[in-house]
């Protein structure tokens, strides 16, 4: 499976278009990480717990998108975009979407 945020994969031709595929996940921070991040917030710098959390969540959203594309028989997803929205106080939705295609 090839992922790309361009409208074509450089050097490859699109043979068939399948349409938009997407994947999402809603995550809440857990209390331990929140507490550590709160402490870290006093001295500034990277909040590693949150970086990890968001990276994992985004990966999961992408995995679900890829699953959907595979089910359609695609071998690539083009023009991939991400969006993040906070649904509730301590929860966020990570959303990934793109166009499933078959490359030659």
């Amino acid at each position: 499976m090839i992922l790309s945020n361009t409208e074509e994969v450089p050097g490859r031709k699109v043979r068939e278009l399948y349409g938009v595929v997407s994947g999402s996940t809603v995550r809440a921070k857990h209390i331990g990480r929140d507490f550590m991040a709160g402490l870290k917030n006093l001295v500034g710098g990277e909040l590693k717990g949150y970086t990890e959390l968001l990276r994992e969540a985004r990966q999961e959203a992408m995995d679900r998108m890829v699953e959907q594309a595979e089910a359609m028989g695609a071998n690539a997803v083009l023009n991939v975009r991400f969006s993040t929205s906070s649904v509730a106080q301590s929860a966020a939705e990570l959303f990934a979407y793109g166009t499933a295609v078959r490359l030659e």
Partner: protein
Amino acid sequence: MDTTIWIQLISSWGVPLVLLALGYGVGTSVERSHYRSLRIREARMRSLPALNLQRPPAHWKIAGAGMVTGSVVVSVDYFKRFLAGLRGLVGGRIRVYESLLDRGRREALLRMKEGARQQGYDAIVNVRLETSRMASSRRDGKGTAGVEVLAFGTAVRIAR
């Protein structure tokens, strides 16, 4: 009489003052060492260009492509947040937040580039940057836990 006033003063102002001093001391050194590491790693990654052109230049022979991402959540220290709060009263440029976003963007770009190099790519095209604020768990939702910067793009391998 004197001692009770001192006890009252310390109990009401002591904790914030200690936090301000801690934030200033540790926060400044954290920022300085982050900038040092950014400069070193950026120099190392200079040979892997990240372009925000939609496609690679026509004369490149492309042997492979794939998506790469890099992200980071960074926050400012207690002292800088205090300074920014003061700035909010009179308006104007808030330098401490400018440097926060600068660090976040450069770090995210670097992580994306480092990931691309690890996978054997030579360049990244169509680079995009997204920034989002993470709300803290404070009940009013006003506090900021930090900002997340996400960099992503399509990495390409060039045939030689």
